[in-house]
């Protein structure tokens, strides 16, 4: 099976997992089937109208009821888009955090990653893209089964960790409480790993570890068995509370990890908007206009009153103006469209480009505690001698 996550696809094909972009906050995963239908509030989109079109195509239908059109875009999934398509109630590692962690660890085709726990699997997708192999662990059996199925559907599961040009299938998921039982994967375990003949235990040799666990300090002592021995290995613990950070640091120190540093990532998103440019001069002219029209009205009314009555003092008539204002339009000069519905950007007005942050920001996700360990600081003396002796 092809993986839509590891291969660039040009055209929408039957069997593809695709994302239907309805709006920024409404992205749905769909599997393209010949007779499939994607139902929305405004109407139904036939998959048959998508098949064969290039990815990124806008699909239009006439909306129910009236004669307007509704649109969606069909996108090929990426780990980042997939993350956006997940329901927000799921605990998700979002892109500002995941991208920082991957960058800090220089993730790429030589990276061997341990992730615990799998959770929603959103970070797993990003790790799978930029690693040699991802070993992900999930202790909750139901979630393990769900993630396994999802990763299989997405073409990620496999032992293939060769640096080849083939589609990567480089994810192993294992059902495990890593705090209690560590990270080693054996024949007898509930795992997606396919053991070769005579292979009893997986050689994990991770050089990057990501722990998204409530108590990472229970898992840290188990890492020595599975991390790469002859290189510098990084760990990142993802914890919402500061007290967890403290216990994590304690455990990292106790287990010989160094260069400990905790950071927070703060991501914000802005939308481009426009604000009407309302000048003082226009505002002044408008007020003058109102004033002069009001005086006109007063004068006219005064004349009317004088013609018909004689018993009210001059002063009262003037004072009364507010309650007996004439019914003519209050203003003629309306430079800001007051009282009208003006669409943002209306070309009859001038606008200043402004940015507006989301109305609700993710002010905190988790603290990220980084540390490093090199288990063996030996060098191969013989090899080095040989290299030095060689002319070069």
């Amino acid at each position, binding site marked *: 099976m092809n993986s839509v996550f590891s291969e*660039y696809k040009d055209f929408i094909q039957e069997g593809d997992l695709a994302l239907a*972009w309805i709006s920024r906050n409404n992205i749905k995963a769909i599997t393209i089937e010949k007779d499939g239908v994607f*139902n929305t509030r405004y109407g139904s989109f036939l998959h048959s109208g998508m098949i064969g079109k290039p990815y990124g195509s*806008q699909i239009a239908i006439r909306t129910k009821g009236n004669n307007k059109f509704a649109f969606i*875009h069909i996108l090929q999934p990426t780990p980042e888009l997939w993350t956006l398509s997940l329901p927000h109630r799921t605990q998700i590692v979002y892109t500002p955090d995941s991208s920082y962690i991957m960058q800090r660890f220089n993730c790429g*085709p030589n990276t061997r990653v341990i992730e615990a726990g799998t959770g929603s699997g959103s970070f797993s997708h990003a790790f799978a893209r930029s690693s040699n192999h991802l070993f992900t662990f999930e202790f909750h059996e139901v979630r393990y089964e769900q993630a396994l199925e999802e990763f299989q559907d997405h073409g990620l599961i496999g032992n293939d960790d060769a*640096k080849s040009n083939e589609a990567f299938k480089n994810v192993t998921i294992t059902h495990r409480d890593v705090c209690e039982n560590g990270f080693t994967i054996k024949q007898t375990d509930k795992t997606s790993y396919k053991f070769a003949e005579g292979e009893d235990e997986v050689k994990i040799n991770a050089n990057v570890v990501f722990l998204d666990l409530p108590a990472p300090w229970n898992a840290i002592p188990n890492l020595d068995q599975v991390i790469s021995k002859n290189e510098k290995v990084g760990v990142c613990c993802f914890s919402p509370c500061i007290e967890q950070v403290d216990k994590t640091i304690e455990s990292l120190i106790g287990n010989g990890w160094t260069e400990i540093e905790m*950071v927070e990532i703060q991501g914000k998103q802005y939308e481009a908007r426009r604000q009407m440019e309302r000048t003082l001069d226009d505002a002044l002219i408008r007020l003058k206009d109102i004033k002069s029209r009001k005086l006109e009205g007063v004068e006219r009314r005064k004349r009317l009153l004088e013609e018909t009555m004689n018993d009210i003092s001059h002063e009262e008539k003037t004072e009364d103006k507010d309650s007996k204002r004439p019914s003519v339009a209050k203003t003629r000069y309306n430079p800001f469209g007051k009282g009208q519905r003006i669409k943002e950007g209306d070309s009859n007005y001038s606008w200043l480009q402004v940015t507006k942050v989301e109305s609700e920001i993710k002010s905190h996700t988790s603290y990220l505690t980084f540390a490093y360990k090199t288990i063996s600081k030996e060098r191969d003396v013989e090899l080095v001698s040989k290299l030095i002796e060689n002319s070069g």
Partner: protein
Amino acid sequence: MTSQLDPLKQIAFNQFVILKLPSNNWKIVELRKNGSISLGKFGAFQVNDVIGYPLGTTFEIYYDNTSDITENEDDSQNKNKNKNKNNKIPVGKVRIMEEKLSESSNNNLDEGEELKNDIPELTNINSSENNKHLINIGNKVQKLTMAEIENLKNKSVSGDEIIAKIIDSHESFHKKTIQSQEKYLKRKQQKFAKYFTVNYLSGSALLEYFLAKGDQQRVMDMSQESVGMLLNLANIRSNGTYLCVDETGGLLVYFLLERMFGGDTDSKLDGKVVVIHENEHPNLDLLKYSNYSEEFINDHVKTISILDYFEPPTVAEVNSTFTPFSKEEIKELKGNKRNAYFRRSKLYKSQLDVVKFATEVKYDALVVTSTLSLPSLIPRLAENVHGSRPIVCFSQFKETLLELSHTLYDDLKFLAPSIYETRCRPYQTIRGKLHPLMTMRGGGGYLLCCHRVIPAPEPEQLVATDNKDPDVKKQKTE
């Protein structure tokens, strides 16, 4: 091929690495066989002595009497450092040193605070008593003369030993407050410690190198978190063909190649980066620090000027300039003629490449760090980006992305442009004294990300009226 060191894991010859010094400065060096590297006041060491150890190892330089203190012959790269009186730094021996527990102890420690764990005799008394009887002491009470210290430094003593001696000879050290004791130790450690860490020269390390030097402008004020997010949002993989504008002297390309190939010059993966540049010649200087072979770079990085890209020759035009010879004809060519033929052949092929990358290839992402006016640049570059693929622009200023965002909003070929800001906030990570660093570099830049899409042909007039959002508003799935 015999067994070799893996330059991605171990310190290897002919590799550029980045050294971290006790002063928290960085130094980029190339590890030449039999060479030595001077760290100025922090000593000097033989390259051969560090080869083979894992990257990331910290070494201490020490001088013992038995070792012949060879004068440092000095690499060209260190020339500037050694103009002062003592321009021959003695080359010491190295031994592995255990790293500091906390990153903060080297790097991110705030003024006046020190790693408690390092100095177990100092206890943290949380009381206002602390500096009630604070004494203002200068260097006067310091009994060791500078000459004596220099002497110690040139002897067989490690930095820590020197510091211990200094403390012993410092009369009022124990009268100082905890905080000022810590400050004092910190200062002395930075002054006398002779150690260095040999780090892999990752893109992030290279970026940090320029930022630490105060050279923000060179890297367009980019932060590690911004570039990391750029690479993820752009969905950079090992097998894509990416269109790129890089005004950071090659740093962005450095990052792209690292993400795509893991820094492995022997990688068999076939991704490509096509770099569009606005001057006659591309500036990818920083790639010189990478460990990629010329062949690798030729295979994976193509450079085209904006003029060639936007106004490429036709295949016919290219073909008209050059007629390939047959094998026999080539054999007959001699000397200059033969060389000239191959040069022209190479030029011809590169011109064909220009035609191909300017007109045929559909790109898997467009990534841009450019100070050119983005509203004029991005829509035209995006023409050759495949549908559903991301477009990510980095800019030092949000305002330039705001302009771009409005331009892209008004164009149905772009889906939902958004401006992103991401900021990393490091902590002083010392148990009992946890807090965010008191000061940080400002800046870090902003990203704009959107996806290239293909508008439906039919009902354009309807959509065009709604320039804020190309999708139906309020539309929801049932």
